[in-house]
């Protein structure tokens, strides 16, 4: 590994985790407000400003910066060549930073309390939206660089399989490009003109459709680094080999295909679409279980190989033989367990009929926190613990606080989100600042809300411990700066071009998007509908 981009990657990770620390602080405060324990803290305006900031950071800022840094790291270490343009990479980074500097002040000043899903006709300060556009445009620089890097490598290595981690990384770049189309169109053609006062009405059916286009696959964009690490780092960390390189490629490809044409499962209760398209998108949503199950199988098998190589015997003996003291192994296991719970909730959400029970309740909030916090972010921690020593050339002082941090995060996630599942089934609405617990009908909700608040503080403690763990790294001993990825049991010599590039993948995505969204989007242009009046929170109307 001759080429490095350490400063660039550390800048991305550093800002991502600094923003993350702020966002978990806000999260814990929000739970305190909802618990009703401290009525003095309770102001809906402050609450919604906080929820908007929390969602904006956790949804747009932290994962985007993290994934950009992750992508640069993977590109440099797997291809063993410099980034195509370090200057463009820094330009993308600074665009994101400028975007964040525009968006967050608008939120904290109460001028954009529209939540990160910004469903119009609620509209806030234009700086909020322009800031987010810059974040997205900055991330497009990364998309371009990743595609460029892979193309350059392929040109110099004709016929050779692209390293699996890089293949997954570029899959995520294409996924992100497709994903952001929906929200970019919504912002540029609908929301920003409204927030500038150029338009007084907004077609909310179209806006919600465009946002659903983005809102489902964005989760897979966050998730893909975790999957890449399951395949390319976790088996090595466990002391074994990857069971199948092919399964990894197939899973990445299928995740791109089946995460995009499915967002309408967020709109099952919406009136603007016919039942037929909702059904089609539900069917396509079901398919996303295929790459997930492939992954659980392949990683389970890879872990078994590792366990047996370490002397594990019998049907389950290999599990005990795994090196559980290694953060990567522990995090992978915790992430799988939480993915199990989150995935179960997700199957309820995406079922056309059952969705009605839990629509707009705390159940949904619980589901996406489990997937995001439980499955994704815990792997981001593990990735940071893996990459940071390589970036700064220092060993961690001790693995103990690292393991403690991961355990606390997983436990905190369960304690926070399980009560929300229960409350959701009892009908507690989401996106509500406060509840009147003196009302006997909902008085018992308060107990569960307090439990989840405790979970929030466990998460906050864990998150701060994470930052502490990274900082203490700088006092550690000299470390090996070489990055090693997992080797497959049978390393591939040549793979089908469909699994070594993205032509077929993008063609199929285009086809699926046309089928799933072609008519549902087009109908807004020929069916007479009634646009809604824009409400400007920044002007107070």
């Amino acid at each position, binding site marked *: 590994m001759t080429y490095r981009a350490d400063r660039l990657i550390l800048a991305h990770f550093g800002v991502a985790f600094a923003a993350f620390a702020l966002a978990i602080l806000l999260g814990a405060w929000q739970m305190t407000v909802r618990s009703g324990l401290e009525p003095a803290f309770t102001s809906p305006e402050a609450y919604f400003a906080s929820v908007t900031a929390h969602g904006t950071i956790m949804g747009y800022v932290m994962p985007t910066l993290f994934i950009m840094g992750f992508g640069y790291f993977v590109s440099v270490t797997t291809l063993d060549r410099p980034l195509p343009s370090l200057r463009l990479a820094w330009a993308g980074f600074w665009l994101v930073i400028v975007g964040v500097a525009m968006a967050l002040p608008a939120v904290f000043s109460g001028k954009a309390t529209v939540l990160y899903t910004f469903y119009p006709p609620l509209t806030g300060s234009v700086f909020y939206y322009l800031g987010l556009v810059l974040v997205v445009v900055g991330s497009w620089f990364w998309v371009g660089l990743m595609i460029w890097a892979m193309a350059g490598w392929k040109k110099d290595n004709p016929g050779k399989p692209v390293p699996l981690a890089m293949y997954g990384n570029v899959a995520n770049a294409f996924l992100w490009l497709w994903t952001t189309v929906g929200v970019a169109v919504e912002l540029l053609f609908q929301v920003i003109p409204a927030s500038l006062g150029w338009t007084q009405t907004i077609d909310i059916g179209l806006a919600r459709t465009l946002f659903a286009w983005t809102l489902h696959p964005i989760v897979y964009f966050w998730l893909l680094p975790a999957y890449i690490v399951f395949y390319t780092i976790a088996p090595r960390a466990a002391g074994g080999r990857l069971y199948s390189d092919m399964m990894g490629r197939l899973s990445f490809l299928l995740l791109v295909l089946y995460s995009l044409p499915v967002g309408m499962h967020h709109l099952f209760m919406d009136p603007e679409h*016919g039942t037929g398209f909702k059904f089609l998108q539900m069917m396509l949503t079901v398919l996303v279980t295929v790459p997930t199950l492939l992954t659980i199988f392949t990683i389970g098998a890879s872990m078994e190989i590792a366990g047996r190589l370490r002397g594990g015997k019998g049907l389950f003996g290999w599990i005990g033989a795994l090196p559980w003291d290694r953060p990567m192994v522990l995090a992978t296991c915790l992430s799988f367990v939480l993915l199990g719970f989150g995935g179960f909730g997700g199957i309820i959400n995406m079922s056309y009929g059952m969705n009605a029970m839990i629509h707009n309740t705390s159940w949904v909030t619980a589901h996406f926190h489990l997937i995001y916090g439980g499955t994704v972010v815990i792997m981001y921690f593990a990735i940071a613990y893996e990459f940071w020593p390589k970036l700064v050339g220092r060993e961690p002082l001790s693995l103990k606080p690292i393991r403690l941090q991961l355990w606390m995060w997983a436990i905190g996630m369960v304690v926070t989100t399980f009560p929300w599942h229960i409350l959701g089934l009892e009908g507690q609405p989401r996106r509500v600042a406060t509840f009147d617990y003196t009302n006997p009908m909902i008085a018992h909700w308060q107990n569960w809300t307090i439990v989840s608040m405790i979970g929030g503080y466990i998460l906050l403690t864990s998150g701060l411990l994470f930052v502490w763990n990274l900082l203490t790294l700088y006092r550690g001993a000299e470390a090996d700066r070489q990055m090693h990825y997992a080797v497959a049991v049978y390393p591939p010599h040549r793979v089908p071009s469909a699994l070594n590039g993205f032509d077929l993948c993008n063609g199929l995505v285009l086809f699926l998007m046309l089928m799933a969204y072609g008519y549902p989007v087009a109908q807004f242009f020929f069916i007479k509908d009634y646009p809604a009046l824009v409400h400007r929170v920044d002007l107070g109307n």
Partner: protein
Amino acid sequence: MSETSPLTPGPIGSDHPASDRSWRIWTSVFIAGFVLVSLVIGFVILPWRSESGVDPFTAICRALGLPGSEKIPPDPGAAKASAPASNVTWTIETNRLLSNASAAKGTALAKDTCGACHGEDGKSTDPEQFPNLAGQSQAAIFKELADFQSGDRKSDIMAPIAQALTREQMADVAAYYAAQKPDDLRAADSAVMLKVDLLAREGDPKRGIPSCDSCHGPSRSGPEDAPLLLGQSAPYIEKQIGNFGSQTRHNDVFERMRTIAHQLTPEEAHALAIYYHGMPASN
């Protein structure tokens, strides 16, 4: 996804472009086939089977969500309902009219005409007959004036006054009264039973009655034209609930208030009126 793909571990792929082609073909066939099957189930089989007596074409149109193909049966009362409760609609034009209105221009009108009954400062000279207007929502005042003008709301006193006004004047005078400061009051929750307090704040789901506050409370999150109730005199509120209940008053869009008032007992209407009559906030 392809039958030809080796899903078992081993040296994968080959140097034959034929393998590439079969990947391409089988993946596309699988995906197109899956979409086709889903389309047939979602657009033909399910809609057709779940709605008897419908030809497949209509069933497909419904699954597409095409307007005009809904399964809402023709409403026998449609002719009656087609006479609108009010001519006021919350279009861009109406909103622009209201936001361009000038409270200053409304002052003279309020002093010369309205003030005699409703008070120059919006505090009624006889609140049992004439509602207080100070701090009332501009949209609500405008809508009532327009309804008096069109006859959708009947009043021998208000009809000729409203008929003499232009829409701009109505918007101006509504803006004037909306800007006046009302008395500092809060709901008289201690004067009524908890049941009534709950009715006002939570509604009664068993009877399908939404909370009064959800439209008439300080957040005014209901329809644009819902007036604030706090601070009107109890007899006035009780009379209006009664009028809605007996259909004497019928300028509520979608019959919202008629439906609710019809379900309230006289005791509840009386208690709610006391509740919204309010008490001094400093108590």
